[in-house]
């Protein structure tokens, strides 16, 4: 079936006002000098009042970065990034010393987050969700801190963690994603400005969902946050990350790093609803989302589960991965990626099986519409020691319209005869029959498409924490508005 021209034009009409997060907030900012140099790195480190070892680490990363070339293997294309034409640190002036409590937060900031649907005042906060809000380069508020502290959970900006529990940060920072990993991660290591730190002590089931909202506001600013989550023995945490940015004509770089460590019997569930500004419908502007996310299942019976709903960004380049070291550890990756207009996404996962009886599951649902290009890229590796390891991968792509592309590039490497790897992939379109059936029953074409696409994504949507599943479901519909036939 080919998307009918009528519905394509319907979509385009809707396109204009669909990115409702595209406003900017007028705040005075303090920024680093433009461009990237050792000075920039020292400036950021000094602003954050960091210990010597961290500055050294940043500088090592920066020097290594100078020797690296852009990763070229992915199926995304863009003009070379001018790293000197960007600011690497931007902080709203009023919070430069960090707010002691919400009362000290600039009311305009609180308003911004309210517009985003993220109330920071605790009494209004979604029940059972603690939020860390990051605005450009700094954290502006973390809610429910005291309640978490009661059970020993540390949830705070990374810069604060450096003061609170420097040993934990030093031990784990860069232990999953080394600063040499890839050009984007290396850049992040040199210039990261903020991010969330989570530590769950042994035996603790984190009493609420933890959540971070990232917002790029300032112009010409890259955002380089770094998240570190450690789940100690027998602990559990569910973490959700959301992101938005204003509509701007130029491209902004977001090169984040997320590191997860799960020790014996620990479980980390990490969910992302990524809705960075995708650019306008002719492909101008939008965020370059070049993110390195990796989790290490270090302990026996540990589990790391990634769920992502990717609807935003001009270009997405991310592969949330699991290193399954501990025996019986489990890795999961559930993904919905929607690209429309001129968006490009090259996303997937890596499951590296090292321990015995390790299992992994990959469910990827890609939807491509407009003139978008989308690639699933995944690696499943069974090492010689991964006895009786198992992987199951299901990778489905849905194409809407005849101008877009959907690609599937799995790498499967098995060096163990007792390991079982199963991979399946399909590519298809929404059938005319399905749409007709729904429309005949009185459902408008847009709703019918959203319905079919939501059905297509069901397995992944089910993985999201309840509070966000509804939001994600709506997002799926909005992202595809008008794209359909």
């Amino acid at each position, binding site marked *: 079936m080919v998307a009918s021209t009528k519905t394509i034009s319907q979509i385009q009409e809707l396109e204009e006002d669909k990115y409702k997060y595209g406003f900017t907030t007028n705040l005075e900012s303090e920024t680093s000098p433009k461009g990237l140099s050792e000075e920039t790195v020292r400036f950021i480190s000094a602003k954050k009042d960091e210990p010597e070892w961290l500055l050294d680490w940043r500088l090592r990363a920066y020097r290594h970065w100078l020797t690296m070339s852009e990763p070229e293997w992915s199926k995304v294309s863009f003009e070379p990034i001018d790293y000197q034409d960007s600011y690497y640190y931007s902080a709203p002036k009023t919070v430069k010393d960090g707010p002691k409590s919400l009362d000290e937060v600039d009311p305009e900031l609180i308003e911004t987050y309210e517009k985003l649907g993220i109330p920071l005042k605790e009494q209004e906060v979604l029940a059972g969700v603690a939020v860390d809000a990051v605005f450009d380069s700094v954290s502006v508020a973390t809610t429910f801190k005291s309640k978490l502290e009661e059970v020993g959970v540390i949830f705070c900006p990374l810069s604060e963690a450096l003061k609170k529990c420097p040993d934990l940060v030093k031990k784990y920072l860069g232990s999953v994603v080394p600063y040499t990993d890839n050009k984007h991660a290396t850049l992040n290591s040199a210039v990261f400005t903020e991010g969330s730190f989570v530590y769950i002590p042994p035996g603790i089931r984190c009493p609420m969902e933890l959540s971070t909202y990232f917002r790029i506001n300032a112009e010409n600013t890259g955002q380089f946050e770094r998240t570190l989550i450690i789940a100690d023995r027998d602990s559990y945490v569910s973490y959700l990350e959301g992101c938005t940015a204003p509509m701007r004509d130029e491209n902004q770089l977001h090169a984040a790093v997320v590191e997860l460590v799960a020790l014996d019997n620990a479980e980390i569930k990490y969910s992302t609803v990524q809705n960075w500004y995708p650019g306008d419908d002719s492909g101008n502007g939008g965020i370059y989302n070049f993110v390195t996310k990796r989790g290490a299942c270090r302990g026996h019976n540990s589990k790391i589960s990634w769920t992502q709903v990717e609807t935003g960004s001009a270009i997405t380049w991310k592969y949330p991965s699991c290193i399954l070291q501990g025996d019986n550890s489990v890795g999961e990756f559930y993904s919905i990626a929607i690209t429309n207009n001129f968006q490009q996404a090259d996303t997937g996962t890596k499951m590296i099986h090292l321990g015995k009886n390790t299992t992994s599951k990959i469910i990827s649902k890609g939807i491509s519409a407009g003139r978008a290009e989308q690639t699933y890229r995944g690696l499943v590796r069974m090492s010689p020691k991964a006895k009786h390891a198992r992987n199951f991968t299901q990778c489905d792509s849905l*194409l809407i319209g005849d101008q877009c592309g959907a690609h599937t*590039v799995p790498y*499967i490497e*098995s060096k163990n005869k007792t*390991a079982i790897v199963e991979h399946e*992939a399909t590519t298809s379109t929404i059938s005319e029959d399905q749409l007709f059936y729904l429309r005949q029953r009185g459902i408008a074409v847009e709703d019918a498409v959203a319905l079919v696409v939501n059905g297509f994504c069901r397995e992944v949507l089910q993985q999201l924490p309840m509070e966000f599943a509804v939001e994600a479901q709506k997002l799926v519909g909005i992202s595809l508005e008008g794209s359909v036939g």
Partner: protein
Amino acid sequence: MIRTDDSSLNFLQNLNIDRPGLPGASLPWLNALRQNSKDLFIDIGLPTQKMEGWKYTSLKPLEDAGFRTTNEDDGLVSIEQVPPLLPELDEVPRLVFVNGRLQSSFPTQNGLPDGVYLDHLSNILNEMPGWAEKHIGKVADANGLPLVQLNTAMMDTGYVLRVGSGLVVEKPIEIIFIGGVTDNSIAYFPRNLIVLEDGAKATVVEHHTCIGSVGSYLSNMVTEITLGASSNLSHYKVQAESKDAIHLGSVQALVASDAKYDSFTLSIGGRLSRNEILVQLNGSGAYAGVSGGYLMRGNEHCDNTTTIEHLVPDTSSREVFKGVLDDQSRAVFQGRIVVHKDAQRTDGHQLCKTLLLSSGAEMDAKPELEIFADDVKCSHGATTGQIDESALFYLRSRGIPEAHARNLLVQSFLAEALEEIPQEDMKKAISNKILHWLPASCYLSEEWRET
């Protein structure tokens, strides 16, 4: 700028890339083509594992062997030694190449109808230079693959099959390449052409083998296939080579509307083999069935790399590859299905399954879908695993000894690929080769051969 590294240059120097007396040496267009390819190859060099398409296969064994090109002093074989795949030794049209050189003392044109040409490349270049110019390099060279460039520069042998419009060749045509009949490490570069004009039909069976499992040789082969409208080619390739042999083959086919290309590649031996198959479906109703089996042991390495390009609407393709790896052997499967813009109603399916029999074996698979049209049905699947223990117990509990039960399960596993072979006699011939690969110590019933 010459980017070629030392190892590539050493490899080339041994080969004497500028040697005189190659087929068609008096044809200016061919010399120009060779020169161009030589320049390109020197620029690119031998593929390395840094290239995406060669991520899992190293050509190191090639650099170390010190191959030189073959000459008259390298040995010949007698007709009794020729190992045919098809039993009727004197009844099918057959070409036999020994050490890359056509052994013309054997009968060739058994019962080919008028309008069908089957001959050595150099004879065709002499007798039909105008026709050859229209075909050589037209399908294969556009893709800039380094090993194709090498072959174009070096082509020193090969077969040409041309079937005129509407002609049907009933008997399979057998081409036998026997390598390693010499004490030297030799290299040869067959360039084959298969051209089926509109409505023509033929079956080509290639047997790449050796005598007594010995000999160090490199075969760098390119086969260009052009299939006219509604033509039908069945193309079988059995590769049962010596433990030191290196086989680097590239098959490139252009398939017109309503034409059908069926290929099956069975790899059961060789130090290193790479079978590249690239099919372009260029007319509505065109079909490609590209399947194969790979059975490896020792330190053998087999790489099947396929690309099916759906260029226009209403084309279809099917791929089924199944393999069994023992000892320290390794196999690679890279399969791409590309659906071009506007190639609506494409139907493309691919499957690759591998059994690992030993903990030292390794399988790397990269099935790829690259899709630019929306009204398509495409899928791929890939699995690796070991013999199903419950099936093994079931067979043993019925009294079948373990080694034999394992063989049965290997055969059972491979059956799905054999089902893709449309011709019964070929299915039988290929099943037989599989039986010979299996550990010989145990009893095998003739029943299997019958089915």
